[in-house]
């Protein structure tokens, strides 16, 4: 790899980071209450749940797939955690993880063994899992409350002004970076996303790797749901609708290619924070109508994608 290609790859992956830095600077200058500890904490804490799911999605997308079921798994995880909390914190955490892992395993097996498109398989997952959640909660009318104080503390307590889910997210992000860059599994994920046939010919265990990737994505979505239920002290049933699109958007503006084979965790984390900061800036302005808010956030995201594209193109031409 030449140094020019290296620079272009860095730009592709860190376009989001640069726009993020720019927005933070602009926000700090324009609004007194933007660069405060309270506001920063709200952005980081609320981003942490999206980030946990986006870490799993990064693996899926690098492997050339997509997982549309994460929004439904997120809400199911929360409902199961709140329901399980009556049996103690261990059940509250393990019940959603176990159920989500089974869903991920089924999806992964179908995708890997039958060659069906991940888009369709996980779309079925999206619908089926939300249906399961509605069945467990009387069509969403019953909200289970978290009855175990130890489990609630996991979502609400914290140190140094940040809640525990933020530290969980940081640990998971670091672990995922090592897994992706320093292990054979990570190399296999890149190889499958780059060229599946070539990877298979080279002896990469394609099916096994794919199954693991979807199990991981489902597990992380369930974990995020469980932590969020602990934070809210209840299994809120109206969460997660359209969340998969936010997650995919964060991963893609973080520089991971939707076609697979390239991308990374740092970009994803930057992408998630970028979404959070855009939202926070809109709230700082504080008088945009809902329609205009969507225009602004849509425009920002388009800007990031275009900027990334131009940056990497300019780099290649020079």
């Amino acid at each position, binding site marked *: 790899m030449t140094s020019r290609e290296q620079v272009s790859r860095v730009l592709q992956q860190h376009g989001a980071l640069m726009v993020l830095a720019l927005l933070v600077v602009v926000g700090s200058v324009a609004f007194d209450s933007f660069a405060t500890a*309270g506001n920063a904490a709200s952005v980081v804490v609320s981003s942490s749940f999206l980030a946990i799911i986006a870490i799993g999605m990064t693996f899926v997308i690098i492997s050339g797939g997509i997982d549309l079921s994460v929004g439904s798994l997120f809400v199911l995880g929360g409902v199961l955690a709140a329901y399980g909390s009556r049996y103690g914190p261990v059940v509250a955490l393990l019940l959603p993880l176990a159920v989500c892992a089974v869903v991920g395993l089924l999806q992964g097996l179908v995708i890997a063994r039958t060659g069906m498109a991940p888009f369709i398989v996980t779309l079925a997952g999206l619908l089926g899992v939300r249906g399961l959640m509605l069945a467990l909660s009387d069509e*969403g009318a019953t*909200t289970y409350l978290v009855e175990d104080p130890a489990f609630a503390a996991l979502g609400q307590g914290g140190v140094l002004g940040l809640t525990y889910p933020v530290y969980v997210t940081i640990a998971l992000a670091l672990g995922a970076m090592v897994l992706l860059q320093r292990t054979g599994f990570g190399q296999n994920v890149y190889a499958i996303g780059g060229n599946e046939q070539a990877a298979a010919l080279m002896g990469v265990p394609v099916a096994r790797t794919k199954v693991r990737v979807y199990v991981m994505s489902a597990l992380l979505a369930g974990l995020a749901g469980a932590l969020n239920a602990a934070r809210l*002290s209840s299994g809120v049933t109206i969460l997660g609708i359209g969340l998969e699109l936010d997650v995919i958007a964060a991963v*893609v503006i973080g520089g991971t290619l939707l076609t697979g084979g390239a991308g990374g965790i740092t970009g994803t984390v930057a992408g998630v924070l970028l979404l959070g900061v855009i939202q926070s800036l809109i709230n700082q302005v504080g*008088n945009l109508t*809902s329609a205009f808010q969507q225009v602004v956030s849509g425009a920002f995201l388009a800007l990031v994608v275009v900027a990334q594209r131009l940056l990497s193109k300019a780099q290649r031409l020079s």
Partner: protein
Amino acid sequence: MKPPIRAAALALAVLLTASACAKQEEPQSAPAPSGTAGQQVVRTPSGSAGPTCTLEKFGGEKFDLTTATVGFSQSEKEANPFRIAETKSIKDEAAKLGIADLKVTNAQSQFSKQITDVQQLIAQGVRLLVIAPLNSDGWEPVLQQAAAKKIPIITVDRQINAEPCADYLTFIGSDFYEQGRRAADRMIEALSGQGKVAILLGAPGNNVTTERTNGFKDRVKEKAPGITISFEQTGEFAREKGQQVTEQLIQSNPDINGIYAENDEMALGAVTALKGAGKEPGDIKIVSVDGTRSAVQAIADGWLHAVIESNPRFGPLAFETARKFLDGEPIPGKVIISDRDYDSGNAEDALGEAY
């Protein structure tokens, strides 16, 4: 070269899909209600029942509303008449009272976003919060932060499941159970106590849906044993969903006599579905709750039998309650407003007061 182009195109496609999900609402040139007509009125004498709260008991300190930062967190897009009128009422009243720094956020129906919105309003130093909650449960993180800073919270239209005067100040809104009962009375009257009725339920997980459903069912059970409720499904308070569910309803239960829609948007969706199925106005009696202009117009046109009002103009009452509280007056744990009803007798005259 190729993959990045495709990826960029795909990414744009994803983002465009994400931003293209907005609902449409025809702009309404609603005339301003004349005088005090159309404004919320507190129901007497039982409108302010329950234990009261004072500034001293709440533990806050007095401040000047006009110079303070005030936050309003809206739950859903301003894409239906109720939300449009609600947000406008809060903004207009704040402007009228000279509240210079009103911060408005909109959660776009995403509950996680509403929690973050309110936390960011708190981070911006608001002294008073007016919240239209999307969901009744799950407010723990917000309530903790607001309590730590002694920020009074007034919830409007939906309730939060928490302790008034401790976790939040008070709730201003309608008696939804009573709305359900009154809707049932209108349905019983329309069907002369006999027939099959379908319910288009509101969005799950909030007290409005639960209470409008229970009120209706309890009243039917008590007054009209000849009416059976043979179909219930959620239309999520949305017009398209109401239409879709009604289309299925006509297929599965062609002998239905009445539809109780838990808001006007779903009722209007039902009207569209009935028109599509070749029904005439009045073939199936529809009763709904809200009192939007389009619904009141639909009464005049003969499609709806009656509409129980649920008044969204919370601005004057919300800020009046805040002012009283800051002046040290006792505030009830619930401020219940009185709602009117519309039927063929008053629909045309009342059109100007509907929202």
